[in-house]
């Protein structure tokens, strides 16, 4: 009888509340409470929008000079026109169009550099954490050397070997930031390795590769995601610095750092060719830093002060 009553008793259904929220939803909830992270996300979304639809939004061809409009000031200054809302540069190219196309370049640079560094860094860090011994020592010493040399100097030297250009600059920055990913991945692996689920997988007969990539790696992701977000800002900043030194993207490319290098000699008479590209770099870098800080708080409550 008792069994029947138990079964016939209506079970209170809690469909939503009882289901554990997905990790993504949880992160989003923490993130959406963080004003800074939301501002960062907003700026990134805007820059991304510009980057994707650059061809449609930009009013002019970014590389087409207008012989009748050299160094035209922005529209709100005397002499400015709506044809060139943010003015033109020294050979009459539309600043606004170049800035919009530059968004595409900068985002590609940031994401590509971090993707490269995170892939190589994770594999090296995982392997170092798994195999230990001489391989680990070798990898760590190599990363120490990369960390000892000032980042921009190292990037400059790599570019000096490979030759200037956007691709080589990206490669150089990826090598410079590599140690951070290797160290984070290795530390995470060492922390995870001794946990029971890894032992269980090992007992169940999982091979080393399977252990590395499908058991341990997913659990090492949070610190890597945070580092990747913050890393995009470093990558954009360093690549722009190389462009500014004439070692990154080459003219007439509309890369923001390269635009600044071109604009240097007009500091005295045309502030707008100097001000806008740098402002775009600052805003984009700031946005990724804000988002990265927010993600760190959301993904790793331990780090929250």
């Amino acid at each position, binding site marked *: 009888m008792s069994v029947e009553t138990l079964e016939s008793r209506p079970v209170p259904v809690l469909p939503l509340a009882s289901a554990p929220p997905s990790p993504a939803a949880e992160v989003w909830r923490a993130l959406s409470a963080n004003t800074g992270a939301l501002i960062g996300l907003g700026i990134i979304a805007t820059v991304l929008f510009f980057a994707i639809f650059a061809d449609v939004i930009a009013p002019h061809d970014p590389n087409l000079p207008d012989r009748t409009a050299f160094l035209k000031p922005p529209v709100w200054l005397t002499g400015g026109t709506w044809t060139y809302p943010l003015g033109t540069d020294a050979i009459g190219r539309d600043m606004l169009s170049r800035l919009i196309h530059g968004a595409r370049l900068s985002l590609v640079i940031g994401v590509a550099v971090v993707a490269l560094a995170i892939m190589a860094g994770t594999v090296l860090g995982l392997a170092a954490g798994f195999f230990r011994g001489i391989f680990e020592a070798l990898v760590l010493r190599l990363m120490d050397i990369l960390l000892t*040399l000032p980042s921009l100097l190292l990037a400059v030297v790599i570019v000096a070997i490979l030759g200037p250009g956007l691709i080589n600059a990206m490669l150089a920055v990826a090598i410079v930031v590599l140690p951070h990913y290797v160290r984070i991945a290795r530390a995470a692996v060492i922390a995870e390795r001794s946990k029971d689920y890894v032992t269980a997988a090992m007992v169940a007969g999982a091979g080393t590769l399977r252990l590395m990539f499908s058991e341990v790696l997913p659990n090492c992701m949070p610190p890597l995601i945070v580092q990747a977000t913050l890393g995009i800002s470093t990558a954009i900043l360093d690549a722009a610095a190389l462009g500014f030194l004439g070692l990154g993207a080459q003219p007439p490319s509309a890369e923001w750092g390269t635009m600044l290098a071109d604009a240097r000699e007009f500091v005295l008479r045309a502030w707008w060719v100097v001000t806008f590209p740098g402002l775009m770099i600052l805003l984009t870098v700031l946005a990724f830093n804000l988002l990265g800080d927010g993600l760190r708080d959301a993904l790793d409550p331990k780090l929250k002060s």
Partner: protein
Amino acid sequence: MLSIILKRLSLVIPTFIGITLVAFFLIRLVPGDPIEIMQGERGITAERHEKLKLAYGFDKPLIVQYGIYVDRVLHGDLGKSFVTTAPVLEEFRTLFPATLELAVSALLFAILLGIPAGVLAATKRNSILDHGVMSVSLIGYSMPIFWWGLLLIILFSVQLGLTPVSGRIDVLYYIEPVTGFLLIDTLLAGDYGAFVSTVSHLILPVIVLGTSPLAVIARMTRSAMLEVLGEDYIRTARAKGLPPLRVIGLHALRNAMIPVITVIGLQTAYLFTGAILTETIFSWPGVGKWLIDAIARRDYPVLQGGILLIGAIVMAVNLAVDVTYGFINPRMRRAR
């Protein structure tokens, strides 16, 4: 304590060997014939090529070549610049004081502003002041300093005409180099006008180079202070009626300084990175500009010697920071 120093040293040596390897292979990795690259000229005749090959030891195995290179480096021979034909070490020695003067001034600027700002932010936690300090420091941290330099030139040099645009001192003055630091040399020479000129040339580059360290130091001071202010001994000090300034300035700040000093030490590598950009913007005659010029002129011995020397300096400073850390933090002394 000695064991800490020895342990750190044992980590430093392989790193230094690695840096010599990087410098050694630099010339061999550049596309083109290494002999022509080392000689700095093209279209060398076959006969001369053979002679130079023997002279540089290129006929020997790579490991022997590396041994010769290290031997020369340890004897202070870093090769000669193609452009000036002066020894690289000599050039570095004359230019380094300019970079050091800039870097030390920038670091002082960052410390003198950053620590008080961090302390203020921590003691007035969640106030407008705290949010202001944190926002400004985040912006400073995200700042592309090459742009920041140009902006400051536009504002202070072009619009307001307050500061000079480039160089270390006005061309009107000639100061006999004694220490190489113009701030000191002008005072030694007793030339007040030259000293003022030096200071006015220094202001903008120092702000530009000091911005990122300032942001880092302010953030670190704030978080270290927040942690220390939550400790029991601070509550005890407050409970026994000590004036708040004494509690914050003496009891809390002392312990909060430990991580801050480490962070300050770690700025060395950044200061060189920043010096490359700052010196390029302000035509500052230091090692950063020297290296960038070397790349433009394909002056590889300068580049080779430059990374070696800068790598060694950064390593030495990091080692010194580690050791100092052991001295100021008694807990480290007892650690293994």
